[in-house]
């Protein structure tokens, strides 16, 4: 009797403590500077290890190269979607916007004969207008973003069909557009890029620490400072080494990292980014300190329109054609939203990072790629992706309800 009871209470305690600790640790981890990276990074590593063991070809440089290229379209759109998710809104029209931009660009280049770069700029501009228009409807008429962008999705799909005409597909042979995804840098340029990145990262981190010390502020722990530097240096050189052993660092990867870095800077280190997070966290508080919630909405939807258009151009370049199915009929939209959410950006607004969208896109891309290699059916792939997405959203909801409980 007696020992039984003792064991039981002990078991209950053990049962309770780790589960609390885990959710707590998850929340704390997600709040730290690079911490939100960790879960999705671990997921990525786990997927790579798993497929690396089951399908050795998965870890070959060639496959990594393809993986990066495949994930680029989803990643670009996911970065844009992250911006509206930060506001607590959603954009269901991003893939269709990408499709319209791609179709427009293709028509301008092949049928009108416009110079590639000009066509791209026009397409991006149109994407911004499409996003901004939806943002205006959401902000000033007060229609939920879900509804506006759902309508936008349908409308833009129709628009895309109109632009593509009866053929349903346009081939892309323009050297400039194709070059976006076919140009790779010679190996030494890759090494230089990695070195520049590492030196820049080190300079920024160390200078920041020195300035904090000079002003007598709380310092980042040396472990996280030097750990971060070492980790990102290794990552940069490993990535360059891998890509160099196949074709070299693709221009697209550099472009994507550059754009994401720029958006990351805008969303975390400028008053604009502050306002974005403030509106996502508590719109009423934001309004009361004088932030125009409406203008932030419009700006965010303009940004997602821009990123979607860029994603569309990247897609056109990558597939060497623009077809209705590649953008509208396909799973591009759900993969992009999934990538953002898997990356740890909250569907409830106010939390997330554009870098994580890239990682999320790699997770989705790796899953698809690995399942393809192991000969999984389309049915398996869909179910697998669904499960992963559900898991990511569950983690999001869990860490949010934890915050609510502490209130």
């Amino acid at each position, binding site marked *: 009797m007696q020992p039984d009871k003792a064991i039981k209470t002990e078991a209950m305690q053990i049962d309770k403590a780790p589960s609390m600790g885990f959710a707590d640790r998850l929340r704390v981890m997600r*709040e730290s500077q690079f911490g939100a990276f960790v879960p999705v990074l671990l997921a990525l590593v786990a997927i790579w290890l798993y497929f690396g063991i089951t399908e050795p070809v998965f870890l070959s440089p060639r496959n990594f190269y393809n993986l990066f290229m495949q994930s680029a379209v989803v990643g670009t759109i996911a970065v844009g979607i992250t911006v509206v998710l930060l506001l607590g809104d959603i954009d269901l029209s991003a893939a269709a916007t990408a499709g319209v931009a791609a179709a427009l660009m293709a028509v301008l280049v092949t049928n009108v004969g416009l110079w590639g770069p000009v066509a791209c700029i026009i397409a991006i501009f149109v994407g911004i207008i499409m996003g901004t228009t939806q943002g205006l409807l959401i902000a000033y008429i007060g229609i939920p973003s879900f509804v506006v962008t759902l309508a936008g999705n349908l409308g833009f799909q129709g628009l895309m069909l109109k632009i593509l005409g009866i053929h349903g597909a346009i081939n892309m042979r323009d050297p400039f557009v194709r070059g976006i995804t076919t140009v790779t840098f010679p190996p030494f340029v890759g090494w230089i890029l990695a070195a520049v990145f590492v030196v820049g990262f080190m300079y920024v981190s160390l200078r920041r620490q020195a*300035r*904090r010390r000079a*002003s007598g*502020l*709380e310092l980042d722990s040396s472990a996280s400072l030097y750990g971060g530097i070492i980790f990102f240096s290794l990552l940069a050189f490993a990535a360059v080494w891998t890509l160099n052993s196949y074709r070299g660092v693709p221009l697209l990867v550099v472009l994507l990292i550059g754009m994401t870095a720029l958006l990351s*800077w*805008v969303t975390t*280190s*400028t*008053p*604009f980014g*502050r*306002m974005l*997070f*403030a509106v*996502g*966290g*508590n719109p*009423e*508080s*934001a*309004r*009361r*300190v*004088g*932030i125009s919630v409406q203008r932030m909405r419009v700006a965010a939807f303009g940004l997602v329109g821009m990123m979607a258009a860029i994603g569309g151009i990247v897609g056109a370049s990558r597939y060497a054609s623009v077809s209705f199915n590649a953008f509208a009929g396909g799973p591009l939209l759900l993969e992009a939203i999934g990538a953002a959410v898997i990356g740890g950006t909250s569907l409830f607004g*106010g*939390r997330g990072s554009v870098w994580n969208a890239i990682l999320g896109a790699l997770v989705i891309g790796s899953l698809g790629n690995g399942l393809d290699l192991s000969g999984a059916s389309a049915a398996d792939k869909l179910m697998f992706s669904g499960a992963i997405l559900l898991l990511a959203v569950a983690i999001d909801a869990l860490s949010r309800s934890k*915050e609510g409980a*502490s*209130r």
Partner: protein
Amino acid sequence: MADRADKAVGPSAPPTTPHLVCRGVKKRFGGVEALRGVDFEVRRGEVMALVGDNGAGKSTLMKAIAGAYLADDGEFFLDGEPVTITTPFDAADLGIQIVYQDLALCENLDVAANMYLGTEPVQEGWHFLPRILRPLDDLLMEKKALAAIDRLKVRTLQSVRGKVGGLSGGQRQAIAIARAVGADSTVVLLDEPTAALGVAQTEQVLDVVRTLRDAGHAIVYISHNMADVFDISDRITVLRHGGNVAIYETAETTTDEIVVAMTRGLDKGANNAA
């Protein structure tokens, strides 16, 4: 305006003119008339308590003064000059700071970010960028936030880099107060600033209020705690059902009189100023 103030507070009032005056402020929310033409005033170097039952319109009046709501009607004067307050920036430019009843903090942002929300300092240079795209000066923000919190002596708050979502109600209240008193201001509106605070922390806040008053700020203090109101205030404005009841000199009235005015208005024929 001066004779109006004299009429309102009686001959014993100090010969100062009010710093901030509101006249005939009206605000309606759909069918609810939250403010039906309220007059209000506060002088520099005084604590004006604002009391009234739940739903009397106290917070609505404060929000109208702070620019969080646009009043449907009414006039505002600062040192006798008519001013327009349509946005929170207008109010801040006029030196009006507020601690909201619900604090208006963003839980997903850290303490320093909350304290400078909407007024973030940006780094020198970068003039080719619009202001909202220039890099934040987060070191300056942190330094100023630490200094402001130090002044409030919130010892339990260890770091200004923690997210507000992880803080206790009292700590949050302290941050909201630090945000308001850390900025340049001449008018500080405190909407139930001690509601979530313990005894010692409440005393701390009352001390801060006294310091601000002695420095010549005009303070509006809303509270349901009559002991605090009588402790800190120089005058008491009573609102009821979105209208004025009266203004009392704290030294010349009693808790009972105020409570009666709050709940039943002036049907007792008390010190009638309305």
